[in-house]
């Protein structure tokens, strides 16, 4: 088991800035901390070995620590909210999705210290109203009719303290023969509701320790409070239609979730303007029961998107205090770093150390970016975030079949298993079965670290994403290449200006997720003569969005196509963060082939394959690439699956935008039956999807010059970088990559073919 975890407050920090670290110590009372450079995070004895040299800094030292937990679960908080005195009514539309949970609070104004207030909840599947007066007096009543998952209900209650009565109501918006799930009931109060000073909370219950629990899983539309007693049908009618004057004049607060969808704000459209905020990013831009299907974006028909989908396992910011920080010197060198934390000796029973990676970027101000290297590595931090705490090996059965071997669990995976409150990656589903569309870096990212060996990486080193990219760091260090590191978030925020002056940009092994600003910046750079070495596979695949107000969080909508571990509901394909159509870039008219020459064709996670040199390798335009390489077989070795072509593959496809002047230098061969054609590549299911039976399943090693004198070198394989360190970096994959990098770094222009 892992005994220490943490996260930084940013993945990218500039010279002169401060980066803070938030740490949970699971054993003992103190830990040692130091900074390291990250050269190679792979423990595999078949490779060069771990290389994480100490980087002396003021951070070095021993610090007190303590266990910390994340308070997962999304809700709405309205603070302040007036004390509810006298008679009042509440209504909302709800779509419960996890009624197996015994207690889920829909709405409450609750003083946890005094144990006083009211709570409308679902208890054992029944709509329930509870009151407590803070002096030991309590009242609880419920409807007998059980709610049913994924059905819409109009719910309401009214309280009349003066008369000492209550009324509770639920009506299924869709009736089913023989199913009784609508009900109404009224009776006498067993205690009075005291006047309390406490926030209004929707979809959760405040606890004495300051956390919020008992979260509602499901959608909610139009929650509202009204003074006085009102008939259930009137309350319900006003939820989605015009508000009659009698209700309008009685409105205490009426929340319209279709407003401010891009924001954390929750708008009260009543006269009191008791606006609230969402906490832990419940899903917005969600359709309500009145969705017609005529419009598919909340921008075209906002009133049809008045739902927020709450989950007990949403988490934006773990919110741990900062335990230590590092203020970078003004001359801090750009590169890959990590905070190394240690709380004892690691043995077979426990891992008592961890590495929290971060990148030092070039200075933020353009005027300070002088004498930069010609080369930049674009750290795919958006992809690292997308995969943060990727838990399909825990939550999905059948993954072993895809991996072709037993599921690998390291100490870090055991920790992840035991701490579901750290929440999910964009590949996971919530506990209620809905897809996870937001992922934040403000929480421990267990699988993004040196020394993490993944259940998902290819056989051998089993690295994926961050740690797989350290193979490239090691190779660059071995060849003493000077380079800067910029991250996806930097590119998103700073745009083309950040990369304008670099002659060469290197990608990581799997740069899969790109926002529109990231895409546009890279395309502008390429169209102005940039030289890109795309050293991975399945890049530029998913469109993502960053939030306007919240740093460090991305959104994806698994829309109509592509390899998807979950599917967005119909009508919910548009980002709530930006309003853009989400899903594959390919379905936005920007297939990866149109920016980097090649695009996704197959995936398989067991063993990798070599490339067979193609006829274009001898084209004079490409002769520099194969200088010194006489073999026909390229990359029949490697730390990721034993070959250079593996995990996820890209190939040339002119129909998707691969340029007509692109050279196919080599193509991979001899793939495993588990290397499967991706589903956007067929319209009817084929019997021969595996690489052992389908010639389309292959990677293309490609090169193309651009009209502006730049060029693109594309490997078409996630496993490519895993072959670089083989035989102490002396191999034909390494030679080809180095030949290309040297040529790309030279000032000699590329001359497009005549």
């Amino acid at each position: 088991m892992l005994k220490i975890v943490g996260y930084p407050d940013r993945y990218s920090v500039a010279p002169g800035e401060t980066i803070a670290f938030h740490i949970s110590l699971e054993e003992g009372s103190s830990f040692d901390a130091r900074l390291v450079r990250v050269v190679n995070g792979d423990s595999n004895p078949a490779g060069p070995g771990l290389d994480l040299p100490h980087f002396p800094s003021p951070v070095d030292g021993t610090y007190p620590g303590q266990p910390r937990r994340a308070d997962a679960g999304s809700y709405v908080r309205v603070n302040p909210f007036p004390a509810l005195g006298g008679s009042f009514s509440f209504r909302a539309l709800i779509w419960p999705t996890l009624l197996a949970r015994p207690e889920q609070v829909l709405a409450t104004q609750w003083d946890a210290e005094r144990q006083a207030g009211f709570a409308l909840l679902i208890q054992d599947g029944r709509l329930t109203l509870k009151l407590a007066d803070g002096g030991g007096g309590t009242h609880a009543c419920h409807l007998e009719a059980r709610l049913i998952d994924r059905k819409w209900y109009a719910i309401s209650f009214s309280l009349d303290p003066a008369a000492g009565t209550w009324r509770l109501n639920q009506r299924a918006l869709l009736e089913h023969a023989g199913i009784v799930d609508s009900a109404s009931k009224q009776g006498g109060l067993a205690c009075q509701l005291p006047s309390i000073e406490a926030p209004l909370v929707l979809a959760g219950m405040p606890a004495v320790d300051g956390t919020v629990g008992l979260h509602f899983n499901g959608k909610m539309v139009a929650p509202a409070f009204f003074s006085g007693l009102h008939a259930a049908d009137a309350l319900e009618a006003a939820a989605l239609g015009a508000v009659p004057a009698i209700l309008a004049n009685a409105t205490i607060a009426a929340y319209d979730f279709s407003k401010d969808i891009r924001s954390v704000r929750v708008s009260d459209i009543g006269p009191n303007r008791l606006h609230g905020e969402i906490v832990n990013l419940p899903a917005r831009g969600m359709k309500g029961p009145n969705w017609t299907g005529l419009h598919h974006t909340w921008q075209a028909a906002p009133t049809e998107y008045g739902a927020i989908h709450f989950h007990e396992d949403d988490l934006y910011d773990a919110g741990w205090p900062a335990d230590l920080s590092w203020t970078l010197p003004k001359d801090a060198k750009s590169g890959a770093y990590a905070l190394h934390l240690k709380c004892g000796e690691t043995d077979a029973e426990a891992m008592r150390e961890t590495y929290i990676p971060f990148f030092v970027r070039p200075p933020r101000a353009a005027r300070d970016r002088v004498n930069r290297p010609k080369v930049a590595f674009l750290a795919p931090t958006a992809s690292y975030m997308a995969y943060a705490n990727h838990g399909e090996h825990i939550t999905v059965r059948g993954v072993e079949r895809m991996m072709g071997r037993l599921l690998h669990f390291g100490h870090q995976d055991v920790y992840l298993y035991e701490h579901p409150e750290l929440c999910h990656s964009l590949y996971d589903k919530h506990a209620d079965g809905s897809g996870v569309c937001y992922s934040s870096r403000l929480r421990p990212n267990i699988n993004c670290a040196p020394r993490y060996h993944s259940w998902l990486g290819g056989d051998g080193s089993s690295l994926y994403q961050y740690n797989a990219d350290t193979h490239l760091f090691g190779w660059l260090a071995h060849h003493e290449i000077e380079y800067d590191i910029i991250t996806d978030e930097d590119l998103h925020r700073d745009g083309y200006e950040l990369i304008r002056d670099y002659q060469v940009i290197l990608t990581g092994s799997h740069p899969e997720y790109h926002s529109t600003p990231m895409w546009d910046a890279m395309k502008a750079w390429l169209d102005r003569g940039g030289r890109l070495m795309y050293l991975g596979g399945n890049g530029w695949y998913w469109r993502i969005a960053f939030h306007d107000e919240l740093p460090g969080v991305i959104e994806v909508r698994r829309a109509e196509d592509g390899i998807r571990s979950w599917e967005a509901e119909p009508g919910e394909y548009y980002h709530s963060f930006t309003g853009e159509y989400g899903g594959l870039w390919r379905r936005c008219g920007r297939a990866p082939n149109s920016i980097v020459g090649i695009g996704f064709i197959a995936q398989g996670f067991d063993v990798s394959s070599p490339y067979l040199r193609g006829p274009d390798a001898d084209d004079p335009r490409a002769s520099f690439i194969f200088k010194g390489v006489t073999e026909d077989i390229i990359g029949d070795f490697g730390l990721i699956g034993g070959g250079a072509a593996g995990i996820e593959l890209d190939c040339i496809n002119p129909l998707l935008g691969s340029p007509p002047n692109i050279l196919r230098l080599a193509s991979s061969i001899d793939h495993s039956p588990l290397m499967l054609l991706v589903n956007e590549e067929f319209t009817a299911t084929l019997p021969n999807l595996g690489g052992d039976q389908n010639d389309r399943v292959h990677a293309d090693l490609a090169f193309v010059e651009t009209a502006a004198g730049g060029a693109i070198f594309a490997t078409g394989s996630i496993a490519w970088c895993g072959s670089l360190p083989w035989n102490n970096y002396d191999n034909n994959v390494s030679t080809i990559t180095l030949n290309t990098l040297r040529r790309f770094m030279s000032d000699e222009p590329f001359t497009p073919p005549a």
Partner: protein
Amino acid sequence: MAYRIDPKTDRQFVEEFRRNPVGRHSPGLMRVLNTLRHDPTGSQIVLFCRKPFAEWQIAHMPADRAEPLVFEDSPVFTDRDEAEWEVFRRRWRAATGQDINLPLRGHGLPLDDDETG
């Protein structure tokens, strides 16, 4: 599961797996593995790595994540493929009632009923 393992006709794939637990497999072995690797109870055998590239234990992940992982204290494998072979043999026995009394390394599996228990 559509396919049921036939211990007689599928025996050939036992030897194929033993020779190469992880790698390119024939369609016949793929069908056997896809069958064996399915547990309708939702329980999942996983391979816990105690020491990277050195020591592994078999562990059981229950269907309900609220339940703890269960670790087998022994054996501790020092070869990942030995663990693959152990789990394969257990699953084969569960599916066919037959033991495979052969080590991972060594002589092959004869196509003789008497050699399996």
